[in-house]
């Protein structure tokens, strides 16, 4: 899956996992903090562009219905339960629907859609391998536990298939018959899987011990080296993040809705913060351009 249909790994994917992870953590925080329609709108465009570069939006297409319904629900939910605001759009029975509440709901919707779209990209780029590498640097014991679990999941799936073939031959099935019987049969499968796997686990553990687990510093399968490029990238991201936060704390990049709604018009400082914000979010795209540029030069 990892090497299947993808074209060449792009520049962004080649960064050290710490850089990649920092980008996603920072972008997630910014999407939650910068509640301003212009900021969020442009952010979504940039994130979609990142997704387009990665897989031509096939991931986004898979999640589209979920994203849209979540967004729609948020837009509806807010004015339904929140009557605060001065600009009444219309009244229905005894409910007031205010412009403020609709704006607020719309911004939340944009923010959450942005977060979901960001996670689609994250799932593509931050492979389990990279996450495990990061964990193994900070929490080696937890990392090996996670790695073992990930390795056991496909094994357990295979064993379950085996168990179900045997149970089927005895006439026990989880897809036919009464509901109660099916639930019971399915749980019986899991119980068989448990007793089967527990004994085998001891063997795995003993062979781990025999091979010297815990006797020294563990090395990892794929080693990522922190290069000069990574240092520069991390510096770029951290500096931008701090500058944007500074702007946010001074009140830029945030639309006050209550008590009095501001206009969406950007002030000079807002525009400046927006520029920084876009430079942060489009980091994966910028590295791409940088990569192409270097390619040309070397030719």
């Amino acid at each position, binding site marked *: 899956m990892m090497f299947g249909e993808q074209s060449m790994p792009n520049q962004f994917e080649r960064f050290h996992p710490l850089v990649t992870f920092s980008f996603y953590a920072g972008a997630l925080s910014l999407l939650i903090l910068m509640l301003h329609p212009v900021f969020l709108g442009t952010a979504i465009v940039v994130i979609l562009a990142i997704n387009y570069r990665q897989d031509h939006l096939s991931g986004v297409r898979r999640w589209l219905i979920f994203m849209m319904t979540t967004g729609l629900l948020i837009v509806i939910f807010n004015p339904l339960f929140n009557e605060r605001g001065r600009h009444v759009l219309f009244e229905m029975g005894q409910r007031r629907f205010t412009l403020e509440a609709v704006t607020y709901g719309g911004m939340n919707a944009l923010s959450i859609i942005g977060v979901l779209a960001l996670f689609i990209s994250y799932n593509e780029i931050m492979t389990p391998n990279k996450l495990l590498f990061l964990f193994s640097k900070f929490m080696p014991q937890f990392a090996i*536990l996670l790695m073992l679990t*990930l390795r056991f999941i496909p094994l357990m799936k295979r064993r379950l298939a085996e168990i179900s073939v045997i149970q089927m031959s005895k006439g026990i099935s989880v897809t036919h018959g009464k509901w109660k019987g099916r639930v019971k049969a399915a749980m019986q499968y899991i119980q068989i899987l448990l007793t089967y796997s527990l004994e085998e686990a001891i063997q795995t553990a003993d062979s781990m011990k025999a091979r010297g687990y815990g006797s020294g510093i563990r090395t990892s399968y794929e080693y990522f080296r922190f290069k000069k490029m990574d240092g520069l990238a991390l510096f770029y991201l951290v500096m931008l993040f701090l500058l944007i936060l500074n702007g946010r704390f001074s009140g830029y990049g945030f639309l006050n809705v209550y008590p009095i709604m501001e206009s969406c018009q950007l002030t000079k400082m807002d525009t400046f913060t927006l520029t920084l914000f876009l430079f942060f979010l489009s980091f994966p795209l910028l590295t791409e351009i940088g990569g192409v540029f270097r390619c040309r030069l070397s030719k």
Partner: protein
Amino acid sequence: MRTIKTAGLFLLMICVMLFSFMLPNHYLWLSFALIIISIVLLLVRFEKRKIDPRELVLLAVLASIAAVGRIPFASLPSVQPTTFVIMMSGYVFGAESGFIIGAVAALASNMILGQGPWTPWQMVAWGLVGFTAGWLKKTKLMNSQLGRLLFGVIWGFLFGWIMNIWGLFAFTQGDSPINVRSILTYFAGSAVFDTMHAASNVFFLLVFGKTWVKILTRFKRKYGLLES
């Protein structure tokens, strides 16, 4: 080296906390900060304990069974044994192991199904299922069949409610007022799923509870694992 890392983590946590207090009314941000800090604290504690490979593999097996357990139930909507498996593991192997199994099961299954902003919440919710099952192990509640069933019912709902918290914050982040009516409506929306969850917990505990405790206890005694 280890102390430096721990100190660094604590420093990071203090920064996140300060930061959260500087931004009043950003509930979504605050809730993420708190939940991630609490997971990290428990993982740091787990890291400190020297664990035998046998125990490590046992934890991984239980976590992966909890995660994979959903497959045979695919044809039965909103019935899944994950909560039951974590509950039984926590009950037999103790609170800390219970939390780890729950958290790892959530994280690992999401590595396959796709991570989302819900991942840390699932880790905590399932982690707490295992934690409380181990924590209440010696009380009267967990030592009577009726008490265990009650425990299953409570977690069926509590699990849904924990997941609702993040949903509610996502829906009304910032300073939009969260009032009783909106909370009730939101929670009523998930009531059907929560009831199904509670009912399936009761069913599993009733039919398989005793057998699972027996299997796991026998295994624990046979190899002398995770006995605190």
